[in-house]
């Protein structure tokens, strides 16, 4: 075959592929969708630009941060930490059996599988802050509501991830243990459990980090911790205190982040 013809034909094929009608259509469709979305969201850069001077005004009100309240913030911070870790511990205990029931290969019955999956989806579908709102309305203000909210959410989140981990377990070792004539739960304990345990622990650790972070905001809806003090200061327009509290929040989140990263390196 003529070499020049081959090259030019190849070039034209690749060129044609890059600007095909279907690709143009997709691009146009995406742009149109975004146009509507931007309008729906009242996207307006002018509003942003107009608001920029407001940032300076806000900065003037918020700085310098009022450091006198630091002492008062000690107990709310401790409370936030407590909410975070307590909810993770409780959720971890329940999330494993939940994940077990929600995994297609370990669930005892099809209906249990669907039911558990559905419940876990609802638990994690609703944001933990909304759960916090719900529990505050149900059991009153304070960190008890916060703990309950995070427990429910974490069971959903960790449970779903555990179920996926159980479903993706390597079947080889499981088969090997089955072939030794061990009963079902021993097959699980020696074939499945060792494979899932590192994943499960890493999820629990991750959600400890996540829960403590969310616990800082949960107070906003009245569920205790530093978020609540923030809410109170905000309603009283004490902006310098708000700044301090935000700074403390950020420091707390960073500290937990670092600690979890360190723990993860050591355990896994």
């Amino acid at each position, binding site marked *: 075959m003529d070499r020049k013809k081959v090259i030019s034909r190849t070039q034209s094929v690749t060129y044609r592929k890059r600007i095909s009608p279907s690709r143009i259509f997709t691009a146009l469709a995406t742009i149109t969708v*975004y146009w509507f979305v931007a309008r729906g969201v009242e*996207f307006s850069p002018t509003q942003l630009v107009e*608001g920029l001077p*407001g940032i300076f005004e806000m900065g003037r009100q918020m700085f310098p941060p009022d450091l006198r309240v630091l002492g008062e913030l000690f107990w709310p911070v401790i409370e936030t930490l407590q909410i975070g870790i*307590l909810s993770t511990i409780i959720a971890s205990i329940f999330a494993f059996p939940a994940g077990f029931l929600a995994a297609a290969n370990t669930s005892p019955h099809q209906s249990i599988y669907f039911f558990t999956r559905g419940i876990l989806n609802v638990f994690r579908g*609703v944001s933990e802050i909304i759960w916090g709102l719900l529990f505050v309305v149900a*059991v009153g203000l304070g960190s008890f509501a916060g703990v309950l909210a995070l427990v429910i959410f974490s069971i959903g989140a960790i449970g779903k991830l555990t179920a996926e981990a159980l479903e993706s377990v390597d079947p080889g070792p499981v088969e090997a243990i089955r072939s030794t004539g061990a009963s079902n739960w021993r097959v699980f304990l020696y074939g499945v459990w060792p494979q899932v345990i590192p994943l499960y622990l890493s999820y629990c650790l991750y959600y400890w980090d996540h829960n403590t972070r969310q616990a800082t905001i949960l107070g*906003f809806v009245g569920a205790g911790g530093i978020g609540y003090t923030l809410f109170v200061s905000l309603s009283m327009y004490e902006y310098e205190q708000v700044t301090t509290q935000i700074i403390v929040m950020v420091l707390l989140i960073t500290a937990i982040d670092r600690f979890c990263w360190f723990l993860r390196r050591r355990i896994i």
Partner: protein
Amino acid sequence: MTELQPKADSATRYIFKTKRKLRLNYALAFIAIAGVFLWASWGTGFNIPGLLSGTPLVYALICRMFPPDLEILSWLLKPTLETIEMALLGTTIPIFFALPLSFLAAANTGPHRVIIYSARALVTACRTVPELIWALLLVSVVGLGPFPGVLALTLHTTGSLGKLYYEAVEAVDPGVVEAIESTGANRFKVIWFGILPTCLPVMMSTTLWLWEYNNRAATILGLVGAGGLGLALTHAFQDFRYPEAITCLIIIVLIVTIVDRISAYLRGRVI
């Protein structure tokens, strides 16, 4: 099998000693966690009697919520759309910022140590401040409505995506980079043809995961006035209109489930 040899016995003893140490560690860890559990329960007021007395209250609340109020469905259309749109914009716009930032912040592609550290600091700053706080600040700047919500999500997600992206970039197999570099390509080409295609699946998976996350985050931004269903939900609770609240919740769960499905489908097709 051969008879018992002295060596087997000593090996067994050594193993039992090691196991004893391991068992001790496990026991200590268990005691530590139990101690933390008790301390945290005391601090947050979490106890079994409280749980027992609280359960009927929760049940009572649920009873007051049902049956769901379906008349407000048409009125909820706008906030629902706002929530979906906020999540969409809040996930896609940050991609344009997070991607270049991630290459600046990754140890194997960053041009200079100072740039790497400042990019990482920027990413961490955006990420550590919770979306709600960003929304709070932005509502004061641009006013109420979904727009500050979009901006808040964009800022926070730029941080989250940036961090996950640069971790993906750093995890690229150096062999790939070596191969492209050996062809004499300049830095940009190495990134574009070597690193980017390799970490693209992880990045897309991460972005989809963050889209799922932002959907939930978008629902709550209404708490501070940044639009979406959160606003309708807060109003419903404040006015004690519980059937309305449950309708909002059902819609939220539906949105999240649908988005999760779409995300799983896209993940299967694209990755």
